[in-house]
C-alpha cells in the first residue's frame, strides 16, 4: 500500500519542530506500524538523512515505551492497543497519516517523537509503593485477599505508564495514571498503612510536575491501551478527600 506520512520532526527540546512529508510506497498491510517506520528510516539512512527518532522496545504492548499520536489519536485508531501493536491493515491504501509526539508541558519533546516521561517516575517515587524491607515479609498466604479486590487491584495495576492518558487529555492531566497506582495499592490490605500519605504525596507531585487538572473529560480512558477506567479517578478523588480531612 502507498501512504502519505506527515511526521513531526524536532531536532532538540528547544528547537521548534515542523511536520515533514514522506510519501512511502508498497508497504505491506501485515507490517506493524513501527515496522513501517523502520522501513522509512532505512530509506532515510540510505539517503544520508537522519532517521525518525521514536521510542520502542518490547513491541508487544507491555513495556510502555512506544507512543505517538496518530491522526490525532494517541496510539492510533484502534482501541485498547499500543502503537507497536497497530498494524498497517488498519489503514487504507493512499491514506494520509499525521504522526505527532505526546504533547504536554510535563513531557518535553527530546527529539522527533521521543518525549521525556520521567515525571511519571517522580510521581511513583513520591509514594507509589508499599514500604517493605527485603526479607521482612510474612508468608504470602498469611493475609487472604478477596478475589474481587485482587482482580480490581489488578485492573488498575495493568497500567504500562505509556502516557497516552496525558496525551489524550485536553488538560494534559495525569489523573488516570496516578489514580491507577493509588487504586492498585489502595485496594490491597498491604497498602492500607500508607494509604492516606500515599495519595496526598502523589497528588502533590502530580501538580508540581505541571500536569493539568482533571475536568472529567474521560478521553484518557478511551485512549488508554489497557482500558483503565475513570472509576479509578473517582476513587482517587475520594481517597484524597478522606486523607485531606484527616
Amino acid at each position, binding site marked *: 500500500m502507498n501512504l502519505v506520512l506527515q511526521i513531526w520532526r524536532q531536532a532538540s527540546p528547544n528547537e521548534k519542530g515542523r511536520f515533514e512529508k514522506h510519501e512511502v510506497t508498497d508497504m*505491506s498491510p*501485515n*507490517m506493524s506500524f*513501527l*515496522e513501517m517506520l*523502520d522501513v522509512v528510516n*532505512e530509506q*532515510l*539512512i*540510505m539517503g544520508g538523512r537522519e*532517521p525518525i*527518532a521514536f521510542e*520502542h*522496545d*518490547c513491541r*508487544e504492548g*507491555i*513495556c*510502555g*515505551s512506544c507512543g505517538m499520536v496518530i491522526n490525532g489519536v494517541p496510539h492510533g485508531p484502534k482501541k485498547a*492497543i499500543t502503537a507497536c*501493536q497497530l*498494524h498497517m*491493515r488498519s489503514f487504507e491504501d493512499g491514506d494520509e497519516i499525521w504522526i505527532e509526539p505526546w504533547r504536554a508541558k510535563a513531557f518535553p519533546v*527530546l*527529539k522527533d517523537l*521521543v518525549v*521525556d516521561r520521567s515525571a511519571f*517516575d517522580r510521581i*511513583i*517515587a*513520591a509514594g*507509589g*509503593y508499599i*514500604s*517493605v*524491607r*527485603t526479607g*521482612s*515479609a*510474612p*508468608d*504470602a*498466604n498469611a*493475609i*487472604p*485477599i*478477596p*478475589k474481587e479486590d*485482587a482482580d480490581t*487491584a*489488578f485492573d488498575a*495495576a*495493568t497500567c*504500562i*505508564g505509556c502516557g497516552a492518558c496525558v496525551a489524550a487529555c485536553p488538560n494534559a492531566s495525569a489523573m488516570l495514571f496516578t489514580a491507577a497506582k493509588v487504586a492498585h*495499592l489502595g485496594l*490491597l490490605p*498491604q*497498602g492500607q498503612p500508607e494509604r492516606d500519605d500515599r495519595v496526598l504525596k502523589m497528588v502533590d507531585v502530580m501538580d508540581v510536575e505541571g500536569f493539568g487538572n482533571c475536568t472529567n473529560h474521560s478521553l484518557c480512558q478511551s485512549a488508554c491501551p489497557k482500558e483503565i477506567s475513570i472509576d479509578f479517578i473517582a476513587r482517587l478523588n475520594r481517597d484524597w478527600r478522606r486523607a485531606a480531612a484527616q
Partner: protein
Amino acid sequence: MQLDAKIPTGPIEEQWDKHRFEMKLVNPANKRKFDIIVVGSGLAGASAAASLAELGYDVKCFCFQDSPRRAHSIAAQGGINASKNYQNDGDSVYRLFYDTVKGGDFRAREANVYRLAQVSGNIIDQCVAQGVPFAREYGGLLSNRSFGGAQVSRTFYARGQTGQQLLLGAYQALEHQISLGGVKMFPRTEMLDVVVVDGAARGIVTRDLTTGAITSHAAHAVVLATGGYSNAYFLSTNAKGCNVTATWRAHKRGAAFANPCFTQIHPTCIPPSGEYQSKLTLMSESLRNDGRIWVPSEVGDKRAPKEIPENERDYYLERIYPSFGNLSPRDIASRRAKEVVDAGRGVGESGVGVYLDFRDAIKRLGKSVITERYGNLFQIYQQITGEDPYAVPMRIYPAPHYTMGGLWVDYNLMSTIPGLHVIGEANFSDHGANRLGASALMQGLADGYFVLPYTIGDYLAQTTLAPVSENHAAFREVEREVTDRVKKLLAVEGTRSVDSFHRELGQILWEYCGMSRNTAGLERALNQIPELRETFWRDVRVTGRGEDLNQSLEKAGRVADFLEFGELMCQDALDRDESCGAHFREEHQTGEGEAKRDDERYAYVSAWEFTGVGQAPRLHKEALTFEHVPLSQRSYK
C-alpha cells in the same frame, strides 16, 4: 585465569546457611561509605539496587530505557516458580532443585540450584507484600498452575503479565529508595565499558543517550544485571534493545563467558510474515494444552488447512511422543518443528511455520471454554496476523527466547574479575543447558533480593580497596577508547544500514547455531561471521552526530558487539561435541533423534577467556559433579 566456584562444604541443605554465617559483615555505619554500581533495572537489577540501598549502601543504577520500569522483564508472561507446596501436591525445595538440575540436562551447578530452590519461597512472600496482584482462589489464597510440563503446580502467575507485575513491584521498591536518596537512577544511560583498577572492577564508563556525553562512574563494586543476548539472532522474542554489550565488554576486560552456545528456542511464537519483520511475538506455551500441532503429510501441500483431510495430516509430536505429545519439552517441540519445515512441509505463505489447531478442542469443550482460557491470546494472534484462530488454525514457529549462557560467576555471583558481580539472565545462571518455564523470573529475583545483597557485603568486608575516583588514569584511558569507538562508527560512512548487518548475522546464527547444529555448519558460520564483521567496519552507515540522541548509533554499537560475540557462540557450540538440553549437535543423537549427552567428556561448564578480537579464545573448564541428582538420559517417549 583460575576458576574457583567457591562452593561451600558440607551437606547441600546447609551450605547456604553455613556460608551466610561464615560471611564477613560490613559494619552498618560503614555501609554508606561503599558505592555500588548496578547496571540494569530488570527484575535482577531493580531488586538488587533497592535491597542494597535498604542496607545502606550508596547505589547508582543504570538502564538504557527512559524509565527503569521498562526493562525487558516486563514482557514475561507465564509465571514464576516457587516450592511453596501450597497445592499440597508433594512439591518441596528438593523437588524444585531436582527438576531444575534435570531439566537443565545436567549442565548446572548443584549448589547454586539448591540455593535457588531454597529462597524461591521468600520471593513470593516479598512480592505479595509489595502488592504484586498474583492470581487468587475464591478463598482469597494464592492460586498456582502447572507450567512447562512440570508434574506439580508450583507456578505463581498474574494473568498473562507476571513479569510486568513482578517488575513493577521491584521498580516501586527502587523508586522508593530513589526518593530516600539511597539510589541515584541514571535512565537513558548505556554502559559501554567496565573499568578495572589493580585487578578489581572499580567502575564503568557510560554514554548519555540524550546528550551523547561519555562519563565515568567510580565505585567499590560493579553489578551487571543486563539481561540476555537472544537478539544476537536479530529476530527473537526479546525487546529490541536487549543486547550483549555490557557483558561482552566486561568479557573483553577479563570476565570469563560461560556456555554462550546454550540458547533456548521457544516453540510457540508467531512466524515472521516478511523481511521487514522486526521481532517475534511469543504465544504462551499454555496453548499447547489444548491445541494440536500438525503439518500436511505431503511435501509442498499448499491447500487451505480445512481442505486437508484427517488422514493427510501429520500430528508429528503426538506420533513421535505418544505419552507427552503436544506437551513435549521446549527444545524437542522446537527441533521437531524445524525438521518438518526443513523437509518442505511447513505451512503459511513463507512455508515457515506449523499449525496449532484448536478445532478439536472447540468441538470437545465448546468455543466459550476456549475463549475463557485463551481469549486474549487469540486476540493478540488475530491482531498480529489478521487471521481468526477460531476458524483457521494458528501458525506457530520457534524463536530465540532465552539465553542460559552468560558471564561465568562463582557461588557468590562474582565473575572472574574481582568486584564484578553478575546477576539475572546476564550470568551463566542455574539453568544448565535448558531453562524450565517460569524459572528465569525466580532466578532474577533470587539473585537480586536474596543472594547478592549478602555476598557483595562479604566481598566488600574482605577486600581492602584503595580509594579511586573518576579522575584516575584508568578511567581516562577507557573514556578515550569508548569515545574513539563512537567516532569510528560515525566515520565509516559506508553504504549499508546497521540493521542490514544485524539481520545477516542473525540469519547465520539461526541457520548454523540455532535449534540444531553440526560441525560443517558451525565451521561455515565461523568463516562468515569474521567476514561480515570486517564488512561492517568498512561499509556501515551511521547517520547523525555522537553528541545527540542518535538511535542508529546506539544500534551500531550493539551490533558491533554481537558481531564479535556471535563468533564465540559458534566456537562454543563447535567445542561442545555432544548434545545436551537446548544444544543439539546432529552428530550426537539417539536412534529416535534424541539429544545424546556425553557426560564422560562434557560434564563441565565452558568458561571462555578473551584473547583478542578474531583470536581463538582460551577455554577453561569447571568440572560439574552430580551427587544428589543421578545422571540420567531424558526420555519423553
